[in-house]
């Protein structure tokens, strides 16, 4: 396994030989910022076109296929269009909050991206409370949505934002409590890198038996709800609310909301890959030495993005299969089903760990 900390260490030493240490830190901050912003933009572009093509296939159509080979540059064209569009806002919006809301929405996923391990030694901000940090920061996004709905001075926006608040606050419970805590029990650490390393002998999804599978299912459901994707998209609910909380936004501000939805989906998938599917660790099948050695040659980031991609495909599959739930159905699902089951599951997991029934 190639250790990326060698590469980052070399860059650090090279910079230190050029300038004083204060400047080195600043330059490194800027570098990391640029890398993450680029990753953010690329993720947005790629995920949007992927989603549209895959949606097409689910419905027996081709999807966008005109701009560039296989329609690959469709989203680039869309981005240019969104950048050039006029920013329209109504007279009675709360100007300050209205303008600040898109940034809240976009900052949350950006901050979470910093703690995700993309490969061995490839984490921007490796802290020992990684998972806790993720849970805490992911709630900032909902502030952005609430602000957007409130400041738009539009009742449909407000309804959408309130629904979003209700959904995210309640689903965060079973997400943090059950699924993530269950794996923390297994791994014995909140640090995402430690969680990845603890899966060297096999993914937690398989080693943790039934409770891990239940935790995984609950995590995927709550993750879909957290990102406001179909079937939990009642915040946008085109048919009832127009576009929900971002109805009054246009141009690049709308693009921020749109992008953040897709990057949030990436983060949910990346966390699922890290926690349940072994993150950047290659696939190993016990007993197949040759196979395992070949797998080791594929670099970690590629494994990471493959696993994340698989989860993203699963989320897209959900989107094009299930119909939207009503708000009361969503809350029933959370409070009457997911939460009790996840609490039970946590107890079960604790019991499994205590008895050492993990292989």
């Amino acid at each position: 396994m190639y250790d990326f900390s060698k590469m980052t260490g070399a860059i650090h030493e090279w910079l230190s030989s050029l300038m004083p240490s204060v400047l080195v830190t600043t330059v490194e901050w800027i570098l990391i910022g640029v890398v993450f912003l680029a990753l953010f933009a690329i993720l947005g572009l790629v995920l949007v076109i992927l989603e549209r093509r895959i949606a097409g296939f689910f419905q027996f159509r081709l999807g966008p296929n005109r701009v560039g080979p296989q329609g690959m540059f469709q989203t680039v064209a869309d981005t240019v269009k969104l950048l050039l569009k006029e920013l329209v806002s109504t007279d009675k919006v709360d100007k300050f909050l209205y303008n600040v809301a898109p940034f809240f929405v976009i900052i949350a996923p950006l901050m979470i991206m910093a703690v995700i391990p993309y490969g061995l030694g490839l984490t921007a901000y490796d802290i020992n409370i990684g998972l806790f940090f993720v849970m805490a920061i992911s709630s900032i996004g909902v502030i952005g949505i609430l602000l957007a709905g409130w400041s738009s001075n539009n009742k449909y926006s407000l309804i959408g934002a309130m629904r979003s608040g209700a959904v995210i606050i309640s689903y965060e419970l079973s997400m943090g409590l059950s699924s993530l805590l269950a794996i923390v029990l297994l791994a014995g650490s909140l640090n995402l890198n430690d969680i990845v390393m603890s899966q060297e002998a096999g993914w937690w999804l398989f080693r943790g038996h039934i409770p891990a599978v239940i935790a995984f299912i609950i995590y995927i459901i709550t993750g879909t709800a957290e990102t406001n994707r179909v079937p939990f998209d009642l915040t946008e609910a085109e048919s009832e609310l127009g576009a929900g909380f971002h109805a009054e936004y246009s141009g690049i501000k709308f693009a921020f909301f749109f992008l953040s939805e897709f990057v949030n989906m990436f983060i949910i998938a990346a966390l699922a890959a890290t926690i349940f599917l072994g993150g950047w660790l290659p696939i190993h099948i016990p007993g197949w030495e040759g196979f395992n050695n070949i797998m080791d040659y594929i670099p970690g980031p590629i494994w990471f993005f493959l696993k994340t991609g698989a989860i993203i495909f699963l989320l897209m599959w959900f989107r094009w299969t299930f119909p939207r739930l009503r708000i009361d159905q969503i809350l029933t699902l959370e409070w009457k089903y997911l939460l009790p089951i996840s609490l039970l599951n946590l107890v079960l997991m604790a019991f499994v760990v205590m008895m050492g029934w993990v292989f």
Partner: protein
Amino acid sequence: MNAIINYFSEVINGGITLLKGMGITGKHFVRAPKEIITQQYPDNRDTLTFGDRFRAQLFMEHNEENQNRCDACQTCETVCPNGSIEVVWHREADPETGKKKKVLDKYVYHLGMCTFCNLCVLACPTEAIKMNKEFETAVYDRSELTKVLNKPGSKFSQDYVDKTIGNK
């Protein structure tokens, strides 16, 4: 106890139905690249296929001798909910019987007001008008949407009517 069993069986049933749904869409996804049902217009302008019931715009059938089947009875004009049809006619003595009959001057069709409900086609007693598949109807000026459907110089022919309707 029953309540608990119900609760879990509900959860499991729910899961199974969700999986069933995903199975169906999953099958679609696998089959899709080969079985695209949309058409790639305008690439395939020459090979476009239409459904049987596709209705693009109204036209009046003529035969080779420039005859039509419209006897200017105005049923279509009456039946049209939008007033898209105007039948302009005058009375003329029939050369054989000497009876006065309506003769069609102009059959005016306002494409811009038509909702393609097909009522006029169904109502016409002589099946003089039909819907065709020419759907590229965009024009640069609204006035071009008003069309005269009977060809210049065309005449009503009872023989033509008998032949067409008699066949059915």
